[in-house]
């Protein structure tokens, strides 16, 4: 089952704004295979949504420039025509967005919006499309879907709306699903229901999934592979298990230490990564994490490290990961942890 579904190679996304050109995504790499869930994590503003929207080229193309390659089944989406993109969107690759409250059009019924997708990509009549839409709503666990389908978004709760979004995204059985923080705007119980639902449907349809989140708990729960982003770049890529047990990149380490522990000593103060994320207008010229990194030396400040293969299943973007990691073997990240 080693079919590469999506391959993102050195993606860069530049915006031409009134205040000059900013590069929100500057070196993103990852690969998604069929049936696999890849997590993309990082702090707010690190470029997760821009990455996701670049894949489907949803950003305003007048002010956006892309570089690199986004290969879907070997075809570069960045050089596809707009018609080819329209055939891929919603049909081969679907997307679920961060905020279910504003992602549905308020003036059309949910049925209208799902049916629109189905009729666009499938050769069915309106009646069949409605039946299919009801079936999809039922699949997402919406009670009495034949009634709900005639309702407007404002008549549904946030969780229900996200289910509608899922039903809509999956209505054409896409090969790849991009979920951009699909649960952040929801309450905790709804969050886990929605995650379970996505997981369940992913297995059912054997979809590849990109799960964007800032929550490492979500990654641990649903992902097989994870990509960590910092300030527009992928700084580490790894299988989930190795990442949690032995992170290579100092930033990943800090991120893991900042997860609240449910077990063990809870009186221990939560770890906080010192310093602030620089804005896109003042990106450091060397390693982007250098101003906040306890291991940074001159080289780090001057030269940007590339994302390199660290071992068979892992990549990292750090000049000193080997030394740091080896030193840490005996007492992981003592120096880093002590300095905080």
């Amino acid at each position, binding site marked *: 089952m080693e079919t590469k579904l999506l391959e993102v190679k050195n993606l860069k996304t530049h915006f031409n704004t009134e205040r000059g050109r900013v590069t929100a995504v500057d070196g993103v790499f990852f690969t998604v295979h069929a049936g696999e869930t890849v997590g993309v994590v990082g702090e707010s503003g690190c470029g997760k949504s821009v990455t996701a*929207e670049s894949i*489907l080229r*949803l950003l305003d193309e007048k002010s956006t420039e892309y570089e690199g390659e986004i290969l879907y089944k070997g075809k570069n989406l960045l050089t596809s025509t707009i018609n080819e*993109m*329209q*055939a*891929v*969107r*919603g*049909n081969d690759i*679907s*997307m679920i*967005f961060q*905020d279910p409250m*504003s*992602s*549905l*059009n*308020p*003036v*059309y019924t949910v049925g209208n919006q799902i049916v*629109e*997708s189905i009729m*666009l*990509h499938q050769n069915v009549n309106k009646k069949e499309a409605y039946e299919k839409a009801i079936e999809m709503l039922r699949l997402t666990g919406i009670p009495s879907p034949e009634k709900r389908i005639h309702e*407007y978004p*404002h*008549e549904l709760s946030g969780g229900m709306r996200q289910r509608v*979004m899922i039903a*809509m995204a999956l209505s054409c059985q896409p090969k790849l699903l991009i979920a951009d923080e699909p649960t952040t705007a929801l309450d905790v119980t709804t969050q886990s229901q929605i995650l379970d639902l996505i997981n369940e449907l992913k297995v059912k349809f054997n979809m590849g999934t990109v799960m964007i989140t800032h929550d490492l708990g979500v990654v641990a729960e649903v992902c097989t592979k994870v990509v960590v982003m910092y300030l527009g770049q992928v700084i580490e890529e790894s299988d989930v298990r190795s990442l949690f047990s032995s992170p290579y990149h100092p930033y990943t380490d800090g991120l893991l230490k900042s997860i609240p522990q449910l077990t063990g000593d809870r009186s221990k103060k939560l770890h906080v990564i010192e310093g602030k994320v620089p804005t896109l207008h003042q990106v450091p010229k060397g390693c982007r994490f250098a101003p906040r990194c306890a291991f940074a030396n001159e080289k780090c400040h001057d030269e940007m490290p590339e994302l390199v293969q660290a071992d068979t299943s892992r990549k990292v973007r750090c000049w000193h990961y080997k030394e740091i990691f080896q030193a840490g073997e005996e007492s992981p990240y003592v120096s880093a942890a002590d300095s905080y």
Partner: protein
Amino acid sequence: MKGYILKRLLSLIPVLFVVAVVVFLIIHITPGDPASVMLGPEASPREVAELREELGLNLPLYQQFTSWLAGVVQGDFGWSIFMNEPVLQSFFSHLGPTLSLAIFAQLLAVMLAIPFGVIAAKRRGTIIDQTFMGGSLIGISVPSFLLGLLLILLFAVQLRWLPVAGYKPLNAGFFLHIRYLILPAIALGAMQAALIARMTRSSMLDILNANYIKTARSKGLREKIIIYKHALRNAFIPILTVIGQTFGTLVAGAAVVETVFNIPGIGQLIVNSVERRDFAVIQGTILLVAISYVLINLVVDLLYGVIDPRVRLNRK
């Protein structure tokens, strides 16, 4: 829904009462005696005094007002001393041209302004956008009488494509009717069109950034469908507000345009009646215009519910 309409209609009563008071006061406080105007400069003071008595102009102001209002409530808007017919009859005999002109101008404005506004929004920042928006500024700032005169000069006098002035009723033939209305409708609708185009543009720019537009795009919909199905219907809510609000300006502008183009409509009726000091007609007509204005606004409000389901729900 019925309850809502009834409630709205009842709430109009105080508004219309205030309009009635203001109109009445303005007319009766401004100098100029209708009796002497009617009888002409040669009339003797005695004749004038007799006519004043007959018209009830010697009664205290509040008595004149209450007797007028009592009539209005019963559907009697007074009697035109000049035309010697009920005010209501003069009103309706002049309504046709104004209605035709206003509807035509409004339609022209909406049908031009919305596509222009949409295109400007889609092409924002480009030469096209700047040209349209510059044009709309001209549309807002050039007064309708001046525009009317320029149009006459160019299309009627120079090019001889269209009649200089005048009016042909609908029953003289649809095309003839429209031919006479084209220039006045452009003169009257230009400002309306400019305002609607600007609102369409800014409202579309807002909506095109909405998340549900991104959703629509992520489904693979064509740009045309995204704009005309998903964006425009949402953008239409503030556009409708502008249409409703500027309808008053349109009615006021109609008076000017009717004078320029010599169209026998309500505007001309009011202007002529002011010259003739035909109090009953002025008061009655302005009140009737006010009534139609508020009724149109009610219709606009009801249209919100048609466009936006959220409004519908709140009114249940």
